């Protein structure tokens, strides 16, 4: 137990879920609390196998409700903690996430999104965009949300998510999906111990002699005080804007801008290739942080492109944020598949051609 193994940077062929789990160990997590659910169970399986040999606490909780509250307790005690689940399980965690956001505790939550609503399907989906980016539980709060589009990013964003969570004392979420969790790709694993621990003076580790006690709470019964806490949170969310991340692909000469995150962005890249073979100048803006959202970057294309097309594996969720960013200056369209269906690049291209045709008809 706990023997030191020197872990250096290395390249492996791994499943997204396993790459994420390995990255969590290398990121120096003190504890993982989780519950099995398809399609993310490999995270729990990997960590229950590997963590006892290396370091840290791993515990299979009795429910996602218990898991997120163990996260609350351990994070409040100053530990670096993560949990993972998939859509129905993430719904069960919303109560705890609201408390964690209010108490300003850092932690990382991974959602390997599957099709819903309800018990839904175990196939990939992006149907939890609203839940992830708008708060999800009760009250005015936000998670920091990162959307990986590759197995490499499943690993990398564990480090980025933890770093952001600790910098802002805010829960962070990796919004992945069933395909990214299950597919295998080459991954360059980060070096163990390369993520530094922050200085923490607010954690409940035992009251120091002559010092004020530390209290982790989200309860402020006086509205004047509760409003102050809210203002503090809102001020933090404003500061978060500086962490906006996005990727631009083939946008230099684009007439049409695709907007897609995660797996949809991968599909759009192929659609761009197909389109350009036909002389249609497609570009892609891929939001990497879904919260904070790259609204300025999106707005910067209103003078350059004819229209925007959001490609999502849902009925149209991110499109609302894109429309707010574009602010009526150009048309914004949506193409999506739902319930675990993955759009093909050909379908995306066909949708682009349909919109182009519609626009020509309208102009005539």
């Amino acid at each position: 137990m706990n023997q030191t193994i020197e872990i250096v940077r290395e390249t492996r062929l791994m499943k997204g879920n396993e790459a994420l789990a390995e990255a969590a160990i290398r990121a120096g997590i003190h504890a993982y609390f989780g519950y099995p659910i398809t399609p993310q169970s490999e995270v729990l399986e990997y960590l229950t196998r590997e963590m006892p040999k290396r370091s840290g606490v791993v515990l299979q909780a009795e429910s996602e409700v218990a898991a997120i509250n163990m996260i609350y307790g351990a994070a409040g005690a100053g530990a670096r903690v993560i949990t993972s689940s998939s859509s129905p399980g993430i719904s069960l965690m919303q109560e705890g996430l609201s408390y964690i956001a209010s108490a300003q505790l850092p932690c990382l939550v991974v959602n390997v999104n599957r099709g819903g609503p309800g018990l839904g399907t175990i196939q990939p989906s992006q149907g939890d965009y609203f839940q992830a980016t708008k708060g999800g539980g009760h009250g005015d709060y936000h998670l920091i949300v990162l959307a990986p589009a590759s197995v490499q990013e499943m690993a990398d964003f564990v480090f980025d998510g933890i770093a952001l969570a600790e910098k802002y004392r805010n829960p962070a979420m990796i919004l992945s999906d069933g395909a990214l969790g299950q597919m295998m790709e080459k991954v360059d694993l980060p070096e163990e111990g390369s993520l530094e621990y922050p200085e923490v003076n607010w954690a409940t580790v035992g009251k120091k002699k002559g010092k004020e006690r530390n209290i982790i709470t989200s309860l402020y019964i006086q509205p004047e005080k509760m409003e102050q806490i809210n203002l503090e949170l809102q001020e933090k969310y404003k500061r978060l804007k500086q962490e906006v991340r996005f990727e631009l692909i083939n946008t230099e000469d684009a007439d049409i801008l695709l907007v897609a995150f995660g797996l949809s962005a991968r599909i759009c890249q192929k659609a761009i290739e197909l389109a350009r073979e036909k002389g249609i100048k497609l570009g892609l803006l891929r939001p990497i942080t879904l919260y904070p959202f790259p609204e300025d970057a999106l707005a910067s294309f209103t003078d350059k492109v004819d229209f925007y097309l959001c490609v999502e594996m849902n009925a149209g969720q991110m499109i609302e944020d894109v429309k707010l960013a574009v602010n009526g200056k150009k048309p914004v369209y949506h193409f999506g598949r739902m319930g675990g269906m993955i759009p093909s690049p050909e379908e995306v291209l066909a949708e682009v051609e349909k919109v182009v045709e519609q626009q020509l008809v309208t102009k005539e």
Partner: protein
Amino acid sequence: MSLDDSKNGLEVVYKKPSTLTETPLHYCPGCGHGVAHRVIMEVVEEMGIQEETIGVAPVGCSVFAYHYMDIDMQEAAHGRASAVATGIRRVLPDKYVFSYQGDGDLAAIGTAETIHTVNRGENILMIFINNGIYGMTGGQMAPTTLLGQKTSTSPYGRDAKAIGYPLKITDMLCLLPGAYYVTRQAAHTAGAVRKLKKAIQKSFEYQKLNKGTCFVEIVTNCPSGYGMTPVESNKWIEEKMFPYYPLGDLKVPKPEEN
């Protein structure tokens, strides 16, 4: 005038433990919470573990327990105190950790967390305040409300056919191998308080053995919720509650384990 004025030939024989803050308790006159808080904090003071103890407060009347207990504390969501305490103890295995919950919190909304925390034998102390009623929300029926007992949501008395029976969760927990020490105590007389204090002290001491969960139920009163005077309410728990929830140890460590 200071109470600590030996010049006048006076001697302080009873005072607030240093582990309680100066904040006046918000509890109703005659409520058992104040006594329970005091007893826990007396033990923390006497054992000299103020710097090594972390408490978890519930949702219910004692939601503000952290205003009074001068130790590091976390406020948990309704029913989740033992999961929160699990998270704390797992990452701080050398500390003393306790949760403090009422009957609605521990035995209704938090039943799953309660059972599984004990089943895992988490090395924490769980304090369970059982007064048979939801005090903070205005006297509604609790899982431990007695048959026939009138509350604001059982206005004709608790009817087993409609809502089931008072839950003896403490007895249930004794079946779990993870439970190391399980006891039911009271806090309404000097004698009861002395026994309660002993039980809590033992529970803190057992925590260092890492042999499982210690569980202390405290059967208390709720004068406001019952619509009684403090004296009447204490008489009522003796006559009604104790026969159904008899006081005493329910599970003690086997001699060879001790």
